[in-house]
Every structure is written in structure tokens, then in C-alpha cells.
């Protein structure tokens, strides 16, 4: 359940960047080959945001698919399977996409300092 510590890290990173500003949406990117279970992140998120400025925020998760290039035959192929096998049979592949683990963006409530009279 490494998703728990990852999710705690998300909330810590957001509050470190934004202080006490109320966050209403968090957008993550969790690639299909990242080894992170999106449902577990959702489950942990509701627990770890309790009592923080992220409490109640909507969680949006984008899940980029996997893409790899074979070092043997040079073919590029897409796969969401963590066992990265090129159609040619080789497992010697370079992962090009799908391992993303990012906090993409957050939406904060309008700050009074943003309002010009």
C-alpha cells in the first residue's frame, strides 16, 4: 500500500506550495505503467486530506497509457501490461510513456487578494 505514503506526499507538496489556500480540485497524472493503483489513491486521498486545506477537494486523475520502444527491433508499441513485451518477443524495451506520477494542477478558491475593486 505505497499509495498511502504517496497520497500523503501529494497533500504535503500542495500545502507546501500553496499554504493555507483552500484547494477545491487536485489533478494528478498516474501512468498505467507506474505501479500505482488509482483506486487506492482515491481511497487514501479522502483519508489524508481530512483537516487540511485540501479537505473536500475533487480528485481528477488522468491515466496516460504505456508506450515503449524495443531495443532489439526498434519498433514502438503501446501496452498497459506491466510485463513489457514487444510483439517480436523481446523484453529489452525502453519505456517512453506510462510511468508518469505527477501533480498536474490544483484549483484554489478565489483569494480576496485576487479581487480588484
Amino acid at each position, binding site marked *: *500500500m*505505497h499509495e*498511502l*505514503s*504517496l497520497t500523503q*506526499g*501529494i497533500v*504535503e*507538496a*500542495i500545502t507546501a*506550495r*500553496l499554504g493555507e489556500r483552500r484547494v*477545491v*480540485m487536485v489533478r*494528478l497524472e498516474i501512468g498505467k505503467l*507506474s*505501479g*500505482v493503483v488509482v483506486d487506492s489513491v482515491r481511497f487514501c486521498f479522502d483519508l489524508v486530506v481530512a483537516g487540511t486545506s485540501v479537505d473536500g477537494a475533487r480528485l481528477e486523475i488522468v491515466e496516460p497509457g504505456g508506450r515503449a520502444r524495443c531495443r532489439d527491433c526498434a519498433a514502438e508499441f503501446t501496452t498497459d501490461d*506491466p*510485463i*513489457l*513485451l514487444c510483439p517480436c518477443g*523481446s*523484453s*529489452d524495451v525502453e519505456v517512453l510513456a506510462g510511468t508518469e*506520477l*505527477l*501533480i*498536474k*494542477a*490544483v*484549483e*484554489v*478558491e*478565489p*483569494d480576496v487578494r*485576487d*479581487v*480588484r475593486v
Partner: protein
Amino acid sequence: MCATCGCEDHSHGTVINLEERLLARNDHLAGHVREWLAGIDVRAYNLMSSPGSGKTTLLERTVRELGVPCSVIEGDQETAFDADRIRATGVPAVQVNTGAGCHLDAVMVRKALAELDPAAGSVVFVENVGNLVCPALFDLGETGRVVILSVTEGEDKPLKYPHLVRTGDVVLLNKVDLLPYLDFSVEHFLRSLRQVNPHAPVFPVSARTGEGLSDWYGWLSGPSTGTG
């Protein structure tokens, strides 16, 4: 008027792009650990396996036989049993209890290293929490990653836990002294392993009898091949 977008409606929020990696803090600290270790010419190896694969038995023997000063960081959810076993060999050991945590991270390793204070030119073994899933994602600042599987676990373990097995710089197949009593096929195991980790050297060993360990010691003494 809203200063952010010029609209009259303040009911919507402001989207702030962060583009921050989830593991940024861990990886940053791991970078510091790696730099610090390199500065005092210390190599650190992250040992990852399922519980009961024989990591501690392997370490008890390795620290006695490697011929280089060693120290050990032991990761377990609870108890200091493993650190006690290592200390009984005369080698310094620090126990890290992760409590509910299922893996070591760079924060824990940095703290343990400060306590361990390894001698220049020595080798530090970091025995991760027995778990073939969670340790995969966490860089500890190690020089190299060691995956230990044992013949009592079944040939298909690499395919069941591809994320972690893929990260190994070397793979030890432990308990090979038990092969005569099992249906385990080393060939089948190697086929499974190569589907997720095509290049890592594989050493069949027995931490109990010492079989094959000279290859492991040779790898540890060879050029650094790790993630650093």
C-alpha cells in the same frame, strides 16, 4: 473584477499548474544520500524480496565473508530481531521500524545512515521491508538494487511482481540447496525473469551452505552498476 481572468463572477476558482512529480521529495533526498555516500566512497545496496526469502541469512554470511568493512540498515514493520542477528556477527546495524509502512524511503535511510555513520570505503546493506510491491518506487540513494527470490517461492514470481523485479541490478536465486526436494525449474524461472528484466546478472546461491556466494561477492566487488 477578478484579477486572474477579468470576469465578474468570482464563484469559480483559479487553476494553478504545479507539474510536480509525486516522488520529487523522496528522489531529491535520495540524490543527497547518493552524493553523500559517494563522497565517503561507500557503496550501498538495497536488498528487496518477499518475507522469508533469506535476506537476513544472506547478510549474516555476506558481512562475515565479503572481506570489506560492512554495516547494515534493517527495515521491518516491527521488532529489532534482524538487527540483533546482524550485530551478533560483530557488524554495526541500525533497525528501522516502519510501523504501518510497507517500504523504506529516502528519509528513513538518511536518518539511519546518520546513526550508522559508515566508515569510508565500507559497504552498507539496506535490507528493505519484505515486500515485492511497494519498495519498487522508492529510490533510497543506493548504489545498486538487489532482488532476492528463493526456490520455495515458485518460478513465476518475476511475472507476478514485474515492477519490482525490473528494477533489480542483480538477481539472487536463493535456497538452491533445496532444489533436489522441490519441483522448481531454474530454466522456467529464468524464462520468467527475462521477460521483465532482460539483463541483470543472476546468481543461484544458498545463503545456508554458501553455494554460489563467490559470484555474489564478485559482483559486489566489481564496478558499480547501480542506479546512481
